């Protein structure tokens, strides 16, 4: 198993349970093990009736429609449905390996129906999986980055860690995307109309170990690819966030309660277009498309305490001009933008829990919901930058989770997690769906790899896991 996050562990545990001898090679040292899974909050799960922490129902069709919507159709229905169906039945297996769930978090009740939250988050889940792996006899090597493998006639032969060669009868690639590779991000996003390299200004929300070295190697040796390198799960995060591993707490969640302006103190998108799940997933990209890849979310005192508390305190001022000064924005322009917005606010009853009728009229872009004048001091401003969660460029695969070369699947080389999530997520994102994909295809890849190592495996065994 190459990788040490959720998909790699799901593969390792499944393969070990199937009787294979398993070695897991994790690039990071132990303290940083698990890649982006250490930052995971929940897993999106279909269910036809309430299931322990999950309320009501979230049927397959609704899940599929949600996925279709966020990806704009850039998905593979067969693979998506495999992941969705697996999410209905996987949790007892996760619990058996030590994962524990908790009810939806305060302030995130909108996901109580669709997402099962890990108690303690992804790191607690990883700790449990590593303990389970140790109990079952999976060998784990830390600080073991694999940057190349030997492949002959589409068959995996061996993996290299520096100058050490590991021969195995089967292999699962689950080493993540390339989001922490600054040069690759720069190249993928290229130059914009202002001559800037937007990728240079992105922050990485997750691990610094996802350099994409193995992904690049696989693409070089002719593995079939999927996805656009500029596509990723990207959200707007506090510009003061650390370059790597800022995780969940750096997100800025007050976009819909105020206005967002760019470096020129101009609004550029409808802040009240939709609810959090969609908004969350689009604002990173929107900011990435602005000059300087920077924007400022501005609210007034009415919004305080009505959104998830940000990790860093906002810039605070008693006047809009004062706020503009603090944010290094043109005072007159910010005041004009906000006054124009305030004058355009119409409608009735503010209700953040529904798509209410507080909207603007006669300005562009409009704000379709939750539009209230920004007029009650003190005012607060949060400067945001794009935060990349994970990239979608990956290896093309199918129901068997096998790596393909020229359309022909390998017998013993499989792929799971971020390295293949682009098969299902061509663009866009829905909370917890990365875990749905990583868990389903991690387990499929693990079962396939075990079967390949044993020289076959019964059809029934493989179907059991795929189900």
């Amino acid at each position, binding site marked *: 198993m190459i990788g040490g996050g959720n998909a790699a562990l799901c593969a390792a545990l499944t393969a070990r349970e199937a009787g294979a001898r398993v070695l897991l090679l994790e690039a990071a040292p132990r*303290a*940083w093990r698990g890649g982006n899974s*250490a*930052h995971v*909050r929940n897993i999106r799960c279909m269910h036809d009736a309430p299931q322990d922490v999950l309320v009501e129902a979230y049927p397959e069709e609704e899940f599929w429609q949600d996925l279709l919507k966020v990806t704009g159709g850039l998905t593979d229905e067969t693979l998506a449905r495999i992941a969705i169906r697996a999410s209905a039945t996987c949790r007892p297996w996760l619990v058996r390996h030590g994962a*524990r769930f*908790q*009810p939806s*978090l*305060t*302030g*995130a*009740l*909108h996901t109580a129906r669709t997402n099962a*939250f*890990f*108690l*303690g*988050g*992804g*790191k*607690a889940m990883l*700790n449990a999986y590593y*303990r389970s792996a140790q109990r079952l006899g999976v060998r784990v090597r830390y600080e073991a980055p694999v940057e190349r493998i030997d492949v002959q006639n589409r068959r995996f032969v061996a993996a290299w860690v520096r100058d050490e060669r590991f021969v195995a009868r089967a292999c699962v690639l689950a080493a993540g995307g390339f989001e922490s590779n600054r040069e690759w991000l720069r190249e993928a996003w290229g130059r914009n109309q202002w001559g800037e390299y937007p990728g240079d200004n992105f922050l990485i929300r997750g691990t610094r170990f996802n350099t994409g070295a193995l992904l690049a190697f696989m693409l070089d040796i002719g593995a079939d690819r999927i996805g656009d390198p500029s596509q990723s799960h990207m959200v707007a995060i506090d510009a003061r966030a*650390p370059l790597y*591993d800022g*995780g*969940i*707490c*750096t997100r800025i*969640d007050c976009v*819909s*309660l105020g206005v967002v302006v760019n470096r020129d103190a101009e609004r550029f998108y409808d802040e009240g277009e939709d*609810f*959090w799940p969609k908004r969350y997933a689009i604002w990173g990209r929107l900011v990435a498309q602005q000059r300087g890849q920077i924007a400022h979310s501005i609210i007034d005192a009415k919004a*305080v*305490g*009505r*959104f*998830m*508390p*940000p*990790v860093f305190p906002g810039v605070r001022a008693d006047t809009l001009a004062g706020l503009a000064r603090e944010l290094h924005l043109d005072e007159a322009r910010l005041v004009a933008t906000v006054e124009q917005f305030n004058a355009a606010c119409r409608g009735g009853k503010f209700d*953040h*829990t529904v798509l209410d009728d507080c909207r603007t009229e006669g300005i562009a872009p409009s704000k379709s919901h939750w539009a209230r004048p920004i007029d009650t001091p003190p005012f607060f401003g949060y400067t945001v930058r794009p935060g990349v969660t994970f990239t979608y460029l990956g290896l093309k695969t199918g129901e068997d989770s096998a790596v393909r070369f020229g359309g022909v699947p390998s017998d013993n080389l499989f792929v799971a997690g971020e390295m293949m999530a682009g098969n299902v997520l061509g663009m866009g994102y829905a909370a917890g769906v990365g875990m749905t994909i990583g868990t389903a295809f991690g387990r499929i890849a693990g079962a396939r790899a075990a079967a390949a190592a044993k020289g076959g495996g019964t059809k029934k065994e493989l179907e059991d896991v795929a189900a």
Partner: protein
Amino acid sequence: MSPLDMQVEETEAARVLGICNACRYCEGFCAVFPATFRRLEFGPKDVHFLANLCHQCGACLHACQYAPPHEFSLNVPRAMARVRVKTWSEFAWPPALGRLYRRNGLVLSLALAATVAAFLALVMASSGSLWIVPDGGFYAVVSHEAMVGLFAPVFGWAVVALTIGVMRFWRSNPPGPSSAAAMREATADVLSLAYLGGGHGEGCNNSDDAFSLARRRFHHATFYGFMLCFAATSVATLYHYVGGMPAPYGFASLPKILGMSGGVLLVGGTAGLFWLNLTRDPLQGAPERKSMDLGFVALLGLTAASGLALALLGRLIALPLLLALHLGAVMALFATMPYSKFAHGVYRGAALVRWAVEKRRPNEVILADE
């Protein structure tokens, strides 16, 4: 200095809780997190309340994506432990003694135990040998009147000082009117050590990220052992004053059965807690508190062990010496009670009551729940 200053410990705790408030992954582990999420700012009152609500189970440290080596260097149990020890000393009455204990807790307890024991031994030796077994049991060595005269004031003072401290703590941040349901819940949480369960009932962390019920079990043995010993003393007091039956009592008597079983539980419980403390992940607590915590557990264990030895061996050998040891340990335990780790139970109880009341009140922080 007032207890409600924002000093380095409180400031660090507020920084830590601010990050927790933006993350929330640990909500299900214990009461600290839901209580944190009802707040937007963490002033000294909030920090002292939340710190005393923390049971130091370690679950949130091992689960934390921001724990060291992350640059946020988040360590909730450590930040809470540092504030907690300040609570016990800053709210303590009289404050000067609290601060003295905080600086030199271990030394103070052990020195006190040794001094009292030495003093008693000296007094006893001056009137006879330390190695004899007098006919009249220990009252032949130290009379009942002398023991009451010596211990009642110290015990009374400990109770008064601790009560004043906890009242000051409670009044600094009153939660509003209580209810029977809240009291029931808080009582159950105390008696069952609900928050040493890790939220999933599998226990807390000790040396690594694995969960274990060992701490809860050893703590139960210690707590209930202590209560049995307290019951033994209470029954014996009744026997003495009401029943007209002075000590010593036979092995089949109620005070002896209560005291012996309590002593055995206490010795086992404190030995277990001592061992767990020594093997605990050093990140989980505050290193400068280790000797204070171990000192308290050791003193409690010494009290129980010397009491057991007195009961079992005192009929055979060196009754005065064993008695001096036991009385010295008891005296030091009582005298430091309001400022030592013993206080954690009382302040934690108050914090649990506060939480049980607070959670039943409307939440003032209404997050967008779209």
